[in-house]
C-alpha cells in the first residue's frame, strides 16, 4: 500500500472543524434536524478512531460527509471544514477521492451488485483505469487482506455469509489502495465468530499497512479491541473523547452506551466495595483479578437460571421438519424441538444456520416440506397465516420488511385490528404499546422518515400490540443503544412474567446468558445443543463449530482456571462470586 502521500507526519490525515449537518424537516415535523452540530475532529495518519454513541447520534452522516458523499448524494446541507488526506472533500465532485478514501457501508447488500466475487473487486479497479494485466494480483492481494483468500472467485456474492459479504465489501474498498478507510458498523448483524474475524482482519490491516481507519460501532467489545481513540457522539455533539479506557470509565451508560462486559464486571466489583479493578477486555480483567488469590474455592454452581416450568403444555412443537429453498441446499434438516408454554428460550447459531427460516415456519410464511408443527397443541397444516398470527407474533430481523403504514399509530394498530380489536380497546392497546417503547412523540410521524433504530422499535411495538401467547423476535436488539435494548428487554420480561412464551433469536451471547432459561443452538439446520445457557456454554467445541463464543463470565472463569466462578453468567454474578472466592472484606 502507498505511504500516506504528501501529508506530513504532524498533519492530521483527517481534519474537521465546526462541522454542522442539517437534514430538511419531514412532515409532520416543521423544523430541520441538526444531525451534526459544530463537530471538531483530528485523526493522525495510521490512527484508528471509533465513533460510538446512542441511536440517532449522527454517526452514519459523519461517515458519509467524511467520504465526501453527503450531502451531494443524500439530503441535507453542510457547513464547516472537512480535510481528508489534504483534500477538501466537499469541494471536489462526490466519489472523486475514491482512490484515497475507502468506504464500507453498514449493509453490504447495497454495495455488492455484480455476480461474482472477482467482478465485485475488479469493478473499482476498472474505474481506476488499472491495466487488466495488473488486476489479478491486486484482486488476490485485496481478498487476502480481507481474509477471503479461500473463497472461489466465481462465487456469487449473494451466496456468501453475512460476515463474508462485509469482508468482500471491505476487499472491494481496499483494492483501490485508499489512505483512509471508513467503516459504518462493521460488526452489525454478524455472528460472534464472524465479528472476531472482522476484528482480526482490521487489526492486521493496521499493523501491516498503517492505514488510517475511522469506524462507527455500537459493540463496546469491538471498540476496545480496535480503536486507539474513541469519539462519543450524542445528538450530533461530541460528548466524550479519549482512549477506550478513558471513555468507558466515564458515565457513558447515561449517554445510552453499552459498557464492555469486562468493564461492567470491574464496575460491579468496585460498586460492591471490592478492589479498584479496571478492565475493558476479559484478558485485562483476568490480569487484574490474578493479583488476588482465591482463598475460598467456590463449590460448583449449577446454572442459577431456573429450568422451564415443569409439566407445562407445549406452546410450540416441531417434529422432524425439513425445508429447502433450493433442492440442493437444505436449510432445515429433520428439526425436532418442543418449547413449553411460558418458557423464555433463545435460538442462536451462525449466519445461515436456519434460524430465520424456522421463525418463518412458526407464523406460516413457510410451510414444512416434511414434518409437523403444532402451536398450542394444534397442528398448523390447516391453519391460515391469520389463525397462526393469533398465536405467534413475529418481529422480523429487518424492520424495513415489516413497516408500511402512513403513521406510527396506524402501523402499531395494524396487527390488533386484524385480530378483531376496535374502538377504545384498540386505542388503549396501541397507546400501551407506544408507551412501552417510548414512541408516544412519534405517533403521528411516518415510520419511513424515522431512523433505523426507531423503526425497529415501531416494528416491535406492532408485535407487542398483538398480545400473542407466543412471541418470536429475530435479532430485536441489533442497532439499538442501551436505552433501546432496555426498553425491549423490559417488555420481554413483562410478557414472560405474564406467561407468554418467548423465542429470542440472537447472536448476542451476553443477552442469551443473562435472560434466557433455555438456549438452543442451530448448526446446518439441525440442533447442535439444547439446554440451560450454562450447559450450552460448556460445549466449547460445538460453540466454535457454530460460530459462537462463550460470554464474559465463562471466559473469565476459564482463564482463571476456576470454572466454579460461573454464577448466573452475568458480569454482576461473576463479580459477586469472585469477591466471595477471594474472601474480600471492605
Amino acid at each position: 500500500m502507498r505511504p500516506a502521500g504528501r501529508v506530513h507526519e504532524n498533519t492530521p490525515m483527517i481534519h474537521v472543524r465546526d462541522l454542522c449537518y442539517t437534514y430538511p424537516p419531514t412532515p409532520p415535523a416543521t423544523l430541520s434536524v441538526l444531525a451534526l452540530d459544530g463537530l471538531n475532529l483530528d485523526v493522525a495518519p495510521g490512527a484508528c478512531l471509533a465513533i460510538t454513541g446512542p441511536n440517532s447520534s449522527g454517526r452514519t452522516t459523519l461517515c458519509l460527509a467524511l467520504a465526501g458523499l453527503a450531502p451531494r448524494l443524500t439530503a441535507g446541507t453542510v457547513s464547516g471544514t472537512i480535510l481528508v488526506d489534504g483534500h477538501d472533500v466537499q469541494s471536489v465532485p462526490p466519489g472523486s477521492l475514491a482512490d484515497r478514501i475507502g468506504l464500507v457501508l453498514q449493509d453490504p447488500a447495497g454495495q455488492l451488485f455484480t455476480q461474482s466475487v472477482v467482478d465485485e473487486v475488479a469493478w473499482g479497479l476498472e474505474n481506476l483505469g488499472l491495466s487488466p494485466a495488473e488486476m489479478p494480483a491486486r484482486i488476490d492481494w485485496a481478498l487476502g487482506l480481507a481474509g477471503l483468500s479461500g473463497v472461489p472467485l466465481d462465487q456469487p456474492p449473494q451466496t456468501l455469509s453475512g460476515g463474508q459479504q462485509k469482508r468482500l465489501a471491505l476487499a472491494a474498498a481496499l483494492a483501490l489502495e485508499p489512505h483512509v478507510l471508513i467503516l459504518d458498523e462493521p460488526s452489525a448483524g454478524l455472528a460472534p465468530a464472524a465479528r472476531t474475524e472482522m476484528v482480526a482482519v482490521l487489526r492486521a490491516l493496521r499493523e501491516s499497512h498503517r492505514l488510517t481507519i475511522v469506524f462507527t460501532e455500537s459493540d463496546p467489545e469491538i471498540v476496545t479491541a480496535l480503536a486507539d481513540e474513541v469519539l462519543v457522539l450524542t445528538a450530533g455533539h461530541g460528548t466524550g473523547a479519549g482512549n477506550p479506557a478513558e471513555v468507558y470509565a466515564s458515565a457513558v451508560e447515561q449517554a445510552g452506551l453499552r459498557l464492555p462486559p469486562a468493564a461492567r464486571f470491574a464496575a460491579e466489583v468496585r460498586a460492591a466495595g471490592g478492589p479498584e479493578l479496571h478492565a475493558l477486555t476479559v484478558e485485562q480483567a483476568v490480569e487484574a483479578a490474578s493479583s488476588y488469590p482465591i482463598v475460598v474455592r467456590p463449590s460448583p454452581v449449577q446454572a442459577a437460571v431456573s429450568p422451564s416450568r415443569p409439566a407445562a403444555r407445549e406452546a410450540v412443537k416441531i417434529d422432524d421438519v425439513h425445508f429447502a429453498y433450493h433442492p440442493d441446499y437444505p436449510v432445515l434438516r429433520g428439526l425436532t424441538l418442543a418449547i413449553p408454554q411460558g418458557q423464555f428460550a433463545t435460538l442462536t447459531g451462525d449466519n445461515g444456520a436456519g434460524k430465520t427460516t424456522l421463525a418463518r415456519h412458526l407464523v406460516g410464511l413457510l410451510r414444512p416440506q416434511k414434518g409437523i408443527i403444532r402451536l398450542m397443541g394444534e397442528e398448523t397444516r390447516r391453519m391460515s397465516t391469520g389463525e397462526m398470527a393469533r398465536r405467534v407474533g413475529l418481529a422480523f430481523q429487518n424492520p424495513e420488511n415489516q413497516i408500511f403504514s402512513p403513521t406510527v399509530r396506524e402501523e402499531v394498530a395494524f396487527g390488533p385490528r386484524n385480530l378483531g380489536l376496535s374502538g377504545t380497546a384498540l386505542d388503549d392497546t396501541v397507546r400501551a404499546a407506544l408507551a412501552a417503547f417510548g414512541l408516544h412523540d412519534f405517533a403521528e410521524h411516518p415510520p419511513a422518515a424515522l431512523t433505523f433504530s426507531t423503526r425497529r422499535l415501531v416494528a416491535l411495538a406492532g408485535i407487542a400490540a398483538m398480545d400473542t401467547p407466543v412471541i418470536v423476535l429475530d435479532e430485536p436488539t441489533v442497532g439499538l443503544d442501551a436505552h433501546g435494548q432496555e426498553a425491549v428487554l423490559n417488555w420481554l420480561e413483562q410478557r414472560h412474567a405474564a406467561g407468554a412464551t418467548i423465542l429470542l433469536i440472537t447472536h448476542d451471547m451476553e443477552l442469551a446468558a443473562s435472560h434466557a432459561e433455555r438456549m438452543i443452538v442451530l448448526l446446518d439446520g439441525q440442533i447442535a445443543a439444547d439446554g440451560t445457557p450454562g450447559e450450552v456454554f460448556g460445549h466449547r467445541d460445538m460453540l466454535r463449530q457454530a460460530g459462537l463464543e462463550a460470554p464474559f463470565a465463562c471466559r473469565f472463569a476459564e482463564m482463571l482456571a476456576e470454572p466454579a466462578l460461573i454464577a448466573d453468567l452475568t458480569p454482576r454474578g461473576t463479580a459477586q462470586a469472585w469477591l466471595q472466592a477471594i474472601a474480600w472484606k471492605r
Partner: protein
Amino acid sequence: MSAVTAGFYQPGNSWLYRLDPRTRLLAAVVVVSVCLLLPRISLLAGTILLAHLILLAGGIRWRVLLETWIRLAPLLLLILLLQPLFSPPGGIEYARFGPLRITQWGLLNGLRYALRLAAVAFVMLVPVLTTPINHLVRAFEKLGLPYTWGLTIGLALRYLGAIGDLYSGIAQAQQARGWDPSGGHGPIQRAQMLVPTLVAVIIATLRLSEALALGLSARGMTLDRPRTHREDIRFGWIDGVALGAVLALAVLIVWLMG
C-alpha cells in the same frame, strides 16, 4: 441468501453462455421484432416453444421457467379476460353484456396479445438469464451506448427481481400480523391494502437505490479516467454464424408469412 437477490442471472457455462453477449442480445431483439411485426398465433406459440428449448438446452433449470410462467400468469390472465371484452366485434358472437360482446375475434385477439407478451418475455430471458451484469453493460457499451447508460440498464435489470422480493417481504409481514388475503376481504379492502404496500415498496426501493448510489460512488464510478476491463467480451466466428442464422430465419419468416 440476502434480502437483495442475485437478480435474474443464472450462473452457467454452457454453449449458450459462451456466445458473445451481443449475439444473444441482438438475436433476441431480432426475434422480438418479428413477433411484434407478425403477431400470428402459430408464430408466437412456436417462438415461445423455441425460447424454452434454447434455454433448457443452454442449461437453465425448468424450475426457473416455471417460476417465470407463475409470475406472468396474473398479467396473462388479465389480458385473456379483458381483451375479448374491448376488441372490435367480428366472427361468432358468444355472449353479450350490454355494450360489451364476447366474440370469436375478441377471444383470438386476447390469446394473441397474451402470447405476444409471453413470447417477448421468454425471448428476452435468453440474454437476461445468461449474461452477468458486467458483460451486459460491456455489450451495451460496445453497441455504442455510453457506459453510464449501459450500467443503468444493467442495474435496472439486476434489481428488478429485488423489487419483487421487497414486495413479497412486506406482504409476508402483513400476513404475519394477521392479514389474511384469502380471508373474505372484499376487492375494495384488498385494493386499500395495496396502496400502502406499494408506497412501502417504493420507499424501500428508494432506500436501496440511495445505498447503491453511495456504494458505487465510493468505489470510483465518477472518477474521471478512462475505464479498463478485466475481461473483455469477444465476437467470434461462431457468434457470426449464430447471429447470421437467426437473421436468415427472421427474413425467411417475414417473407413467407408477411
